[in-house]
């Protein structure tokens, strides 16, 4: 997948960052982490502070640059979303303004941000294709990253869609 870093960070401390919350169920973390690991190599060479490294990235979108929260949720298939402000996350997570040639409509992809899960400087060297790792390495990385993903998601607040459907099952009446 072609990924590129946008020129400017459009986020301010008060900017809302939205993430889909299908991942809110810890039992369903592993496919998400699997995707983070497989995509690691796509980020090599594009991040100025990690020229020889990739990131274990979680996709999010910023409600900035004229793109509203409802624009973002309408562009995605998921029903559950959560949010935090950039100011609430920036001290503990590296957040990169990235775009890629995926299917999401261009206006929304223009406000895509990758959150890098902290990796303790764990690096997959160039010889390691992250889409073809030994299962033991995949398992190690999954165990490393699972609590980091959980930590990220626990910082988020529910975000109701504009169609008034609450995002959390316990809030549905």
């Amino acid at each position: 997948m072609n990924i590129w870093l946008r020129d400017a960070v459009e986020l301010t401390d008060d900017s809302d960052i939205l993430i889909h919350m299908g991942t809110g169920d810890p039992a369903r973390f592993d496919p998400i982490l699997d995707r983070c690991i497989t995509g690691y190599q796509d980020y090599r060479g594009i991040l100025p502070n990690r020229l020889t490294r990739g990131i274990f990235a979680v996709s999010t979108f910023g409600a900035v640059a004229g793109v509203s929260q409802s624009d973002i949720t309408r562009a995605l298939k998921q029903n559950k979303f959560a949010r935090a402000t950039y100011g609430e996350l920036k001290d503990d997570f590296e957040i990169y303004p990235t775009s890629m040639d995926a299917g999401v409509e261009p206006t929304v992809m223009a406000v895509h941000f990758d959150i890098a899960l902290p990796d303790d400087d764990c690096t997959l060297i160039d010889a390691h294709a992250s889409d073809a790792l030994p299962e033991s390495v995949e398992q190690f990385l999954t165990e490393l990253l699972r609590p980091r993903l959980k930590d990220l998601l626990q910082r988020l607040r529910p975000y109701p869609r504009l169609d008034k459907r609450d995002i959390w099952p316990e809030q549905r009446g």
Partner: protein
Amino acid sequence: MPKIFVDYTLVGHARRFKTPVKRRVRCELHNGDTVVVFGDDVPEAQARVLHVSPDVTDVEFELLDV
């Protein structure tokens, strides 16, 4: 039928899309195959493999039943 995880956060409502697939799974796929794609919080769906190569991480799919 193979089941392929798709990060729908990047796909949105697109019918045709590329998504990374592990090499060992790619090696089992062929152009024209029908697979099941699934994502977090999105129902399973059938998709056709439009383009797959063992040497390219991204596989292109087209959703069939949406």
